[in-house]
């Protein structure tokens, strides 16, 4: 079972400027999209808290979570918007993905419709979202691969054709959950140009913010 660091402690430590390490820190907005009941919330919950609930309540509106991970010398803070999959919330999605640097489009490998829906999400993202957005396709519920409907190769090929990251994940077993977020973090541009505030670049936590945080920690 993969355990992930608690979001609170890790981020504070990494941003301390008094250390000798030259750690950069980046903040990325990530949005999860996909049909209802494919396991978006479970995926996030597994990533952020390492938990899994067999009977996850369906998300109302969009839930906001953060998680910090380290890759190489960079601390990457994900601001995750876990959107609701129900039909009535679909038209709200642009609110979240238009400013996002990364998106995970989730489908359920036992459900062909959810895969088709994922394809339409990808199309919409290509059309409407920032052109630099990093999109990952996640075939969730991979622990049930013996009753799968969507073949791995089919999805893999689709992902390659559309330039997506692709993994089959399982929020239940934790398989590939951290990996897919790591893969996204690696693919995101981590240029530390403070003046480059374009949609594609991650938001570098500015000095002001960092200082204040340090003060708080020392109290």
């Amino acid at each position, binding site marked *: *079972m993969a*355990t992930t660091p608690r979001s*609170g*402690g890790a981020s504070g430590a990494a941003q301390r400027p008094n250390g000798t390490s030259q750690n950069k820190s980046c903040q990325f907005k990530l949005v999860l999209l996909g049909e209802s009941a494919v396991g978006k919330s479970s995926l996030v919950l597994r990533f952020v808290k*390492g*938990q899994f*609930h067999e009977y996850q*309540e369906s998300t*109302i*509106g*969009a839930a*906001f979570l953060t998680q910090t991970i380290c890759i190489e010398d960079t601390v990457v803070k994900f601001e995750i*918007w876990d959107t609701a999959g129900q039909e*009535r*919330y679909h*038209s*709200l999605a*642009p*609110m*979240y993905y*238009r*400013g996002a640097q990364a998106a995970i489009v989730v489908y359920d490998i036992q459900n062909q419709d959810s895969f088709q829906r994922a394809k339409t999400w990808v199309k919409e993202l290509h059309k*409407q979202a920032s052109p630099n957005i990093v999109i990952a396709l996640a075939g969730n519920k991979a622990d049930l691969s013996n009753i799968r409907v969507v073949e791995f190769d089919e999805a893999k090929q689709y992902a390659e054709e559309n330039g997506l990251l692709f993994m089959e994940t399982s929020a239940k077993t934790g398989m590939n959950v951290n990996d897919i977020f790591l893969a996204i973090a690696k693919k995101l541009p981590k240029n530390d140009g403070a003046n480059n505030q374009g949609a594609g670049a991650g*938001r570098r936590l500015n000095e002001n*913010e960092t200082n*204040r*945080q340090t003060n*708080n*920690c020392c*109290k």
Partner: protein
Amino acid sequence: MSQLKAPSLQSLLESDRGSTDSLLAESLQLDFEDLDDAEFHIPPTDVLPSLETVLSEFEADSDVASEVGVPHATPTPSIAEDSGVRGDGRGSGGGGSIMRYTLLHGISAQLASAAERVNAGASSACAVSAYIAVGTSHGHILNFDVTQTLRWAHQDKHSQGAVSTLAFNVESTRLLAGYARGLVIMLDTQTGDVLRELFDVITPNTGVLHVKWTSYSSLALCADAGGSVWSLNFTRKLGIRGCNSRCLFSGARGEVCAVEPLIMDSQGRHELDQYCIVALATLSKYFIVTVRPRLKVIKYHALQGPADCLPLLAWHLVLIQAADTTRSVDPVIVVGRGNQLFFHQLFMANGRITLLYLRHVQLQTGLLSAHWLGPKSVASLDTSEILHLVDVRSSKELECMDMANAGLVYGSAQFKGLATGGNVSPAFALAGTNACYNSIVSRGTQLYVLGARSLHIIGVRSWSERISYLVKNHRWQEACQLALDGYIASAERPRKRAQAKERIIALFGEYIATTTRVPEYCLGAIIQCLITVGELDLLWTKLWERLHNNSDLFLQHISEHIEQDNIRTVNPVISQALVDYWLQHSPAKLEQLILKLDWMCLDLNQVLKAVKRHNLYRAQIYLNTHALKDYTGALTELLPRLTPEQTQLGNCLLVYVSSCLAGRGYPSGDIPMEQVQQVKHDVLRCLTSQHSSAGDVEELPYPYLRALLAFDTRETLNVISLAFQEPEFNNELGYSHRKRIIYILLEIMTPEKATWSQIGCLLNFIAQQISTQCLPRDKQLLEQVLGYLATEHITNESVRQHSERESAWHELLSNNCLAEISNDMEQLELARRARCFYVVEYLLDRLGRYDNILECYIENSERHETVFAYMERHVSTPERAIYAQLSLHLRLLLQINATEIVRIIALHYPKHIDELLQLLSDSNDERLLFSMLQSLHARQAPLTSEQHEKLLELYCKMQSPDEVYQFLRSNVGYRVEHAISIVQARGLTKAVIYLYEQQQSYTKAFELSMELLREAVQQDSTNSAEMAKQIAELLARAATSLPTEELEHSWFDFLQFILPNQSLQAITKSMLHEASQHIDLHNLVQLIMNTHNLSTSFGDIKDLLMSMLVSSRQETEALRTAAQILCDDLHADFAEQRQVARRGLWVTTMRCVLCRNRLTEQTHVLALGACGHAMHERCLDELMSDSQQCPRCKVGLGTTQPLLQLSNPSQHTFTQAGSLDMSVLQLKAPPRRFC
């Protein structure tokens, strides 16, 4: 690989060809010998139109041709697949539009009449230049000009047979003609005068196969049927015409079949111009040679192919694009044989002429001819007379055409030398079967095919001509596609692109002109064309005007293009029509279109009214923002109408507000830079305005924000939290804005006006904001938030809401936000009361009070599963006091997940197992004890026998008898006696039986089983048969350990019970069978006989009796056989003994070899070796030798054993012998050697 591209040079050259200037200029460069010739020749003043231009006007002929029966070109299947667009704009699939077939009626009529009237015979050869000359099989030559008028005719007076070949020189002033019997004549093309008659220029007694002019104007080449090549150098010394002929290649060294001089006509612009280059081909090789300045072979290659195929040669100037992007126009030769075509480029490199291989094309069928048609395609006629047009660059076949009806003339008579007596080599004659060198000739992009009485032209249409052709046939779809392909392909060449555009506009003109009656025919294609080339005006005006009444299709097509982002603006007239059309059919689609269109082209009055009427909110917002630059109008208008049920409107507004606050346009794009600040400010102010403009007195404050919150609190707060990330909210002023908004929110969301879950959302949001330093820490605010967070009981709070509350609290704590208003201890108390155990855990952790952390997990059902992970993580840290807590909460932990906790205990605290078990047994909670023991047992943890027995006892209490039985079977840890007493106490007979069996107390087990069976039978239980079978099995198992009498006794008991029993009738037979293996059959039968109430008595015992009989018979048989064998053995033994006794013995000496005494002195004991030595046995015994060797000669006594039993001296034998009273050795037997 270099790429072949169209040279513009070619067209230049062709256009220059007819002009007198160039003729003059060229004549000045002539050799001296020719100069006087030129002096006499005054160029014609009337400028002839070039042949191509005239002939392309014969387009009408093609219709006639189809009547005559020559089919139109048909596309081959390969074309349909080939969608590649060619560089010059000739579209992909030919569709029969690439090749243009024309029959030259004028010439054909003249040929026919010549054959009829002057007995000219069938056509045999032709040549094309500015004139068309046709030779006939009876030696006539007819010369036509481009208008197909016969200019002159020439008749051969020397009976030289058929005209075998004809050639015009470059300027079309001289015609060379070769005859089948070897004569070559030169004619003036203008007058038809014979200028030279050359009888003896070639190998005597052979016919002429080819005459060709070279690039040198006074030099021609001639090939004869002997395979030799001659150069004809024309002279005019002192006004007398002469000719020097020289043999260049003798047929003896390889017969030349094809000759093709390179004529570039580039007027000194090419380096190769100074050379006179000729390609020659024999049946096995092809050569490139220079004839002038001196004869030299540049290169030769082998050329393989079928024996009946002639080599084919053709030159053309082609624009070569090399890999390094240098371009050059160089001659390319195509060499064909069989079904192969090879392309080679000839060029000068470092002063040397070099031949470079370019590519190779393999065709399906054998070739008759191969000619260039323009620089990009090769036309090849195959052996079934189908003409294929092959694109050189892609090696694909573009189109094919059946030429079988043309009546193609073959030159095989010349190749076979029929006119000269057939004096040619057999290989040559065979190869010449399909010769048509002189009946198919090419010029420019046209191919001339000579039939017996007709002449045909195959032309290649240019892109534009193909469009015209398709238009003429009303194939608009294809025409449009072709036009578009050409336009798209010309993307990189602006001049060409402009031409293509013009052509498409012209096409549109033709379309408008010709399709007035069916205005909707192929509308989509033409619209696509116009949109692609960007001629929208034509679309809006001409096309639209024509469609006044039935514009639906037009509008649908236009809408499609708008949706595909091909056009963003339309004519206002169209836009009005479009809006009307979609208003009627599908307002939703109208919204899509409005969002895609530029607002400038819309009739705002009409559209705004329409969108309001049909509630097209997105379109309304789009128009408001883009056209009216009013970013708040839509909000003030739509927000008051928002109710929680209107999901679409609400979502749309939320997205819009979010976009505005992030400086983005709606639904896509960005707000212009200079407006961003203003828009953000306006929208925010509008949202937070205290009263709406039209609000009445009773209106609640902040109506807009209130409406949004009422619609969806969570999403509205998400919008705000997204907005807070914008730079505007990240300075001092921004923080005060934030604070203001938060207070407004708190003011709106009072418990009276909002539900708890909504307020919860808000407070969570605030907590989140505070903890991420997005809000200044305001004590009052914090207290309010904490007040909510610490609420002890909230009705209908879902698990999710609770966990959100917890995480918000946790966020605040971990960011030290609550330090000002309360300390950790207070917080701890509050959190406990609010059952926020996540927070409690965090606080305990922070305070270092680890001794109670486990409780937090146990109390929170959501986190039950994570408690074990926590324990594992900290199991090695003593201060976490995991064990203490574990033992304290053991019972709860066991309830949560016994397997997991037992795993941890067994892994980390194996020594404490007994202690923990004791703890549980003290507490008298048997169920927990049981689950723990069971888990321990399942993990195969080491348990004592007592624990096993305890578990067994608990099993007996908690589980079904079957489970107990299974447990007993799968376990060996208990002591059997104890187990028996436990189980017996519970009355679990089945288990007891099992245990008895384990104890080897089969009798007890049997008795118990019998009791059970009796009970079962009494109760008429259905499984009595099963039980009986089990007893039988038990007895079978007992067979090995029970004494026979007891076993039999048991069996009898069992059977005595079973046999009379009606209910067990079904199994009686098998039981008897089973019993028969263990007990005496005799007794068994006795038993059966004695048993009463055996209804099917005989049936059942029949088998038994049968088997008894069988076994008794077997026993008798066995006895008999044994006796027999015994007798046989005895007999054999006796016979052997007898034989031995009768065998003679050969002894070398009559004395014992050991004691040297006579053997007979002690007659009763003798020992004999195989070597023939004999000794007393006593002597041998005295020697005390164990070895099986003769003591004298050391020969092994055993080696000859097979030969004689005596080798091992046996006392027995001699005792027997003795007993037979054999006192003296019989030495009568002949001596034998044993070896």
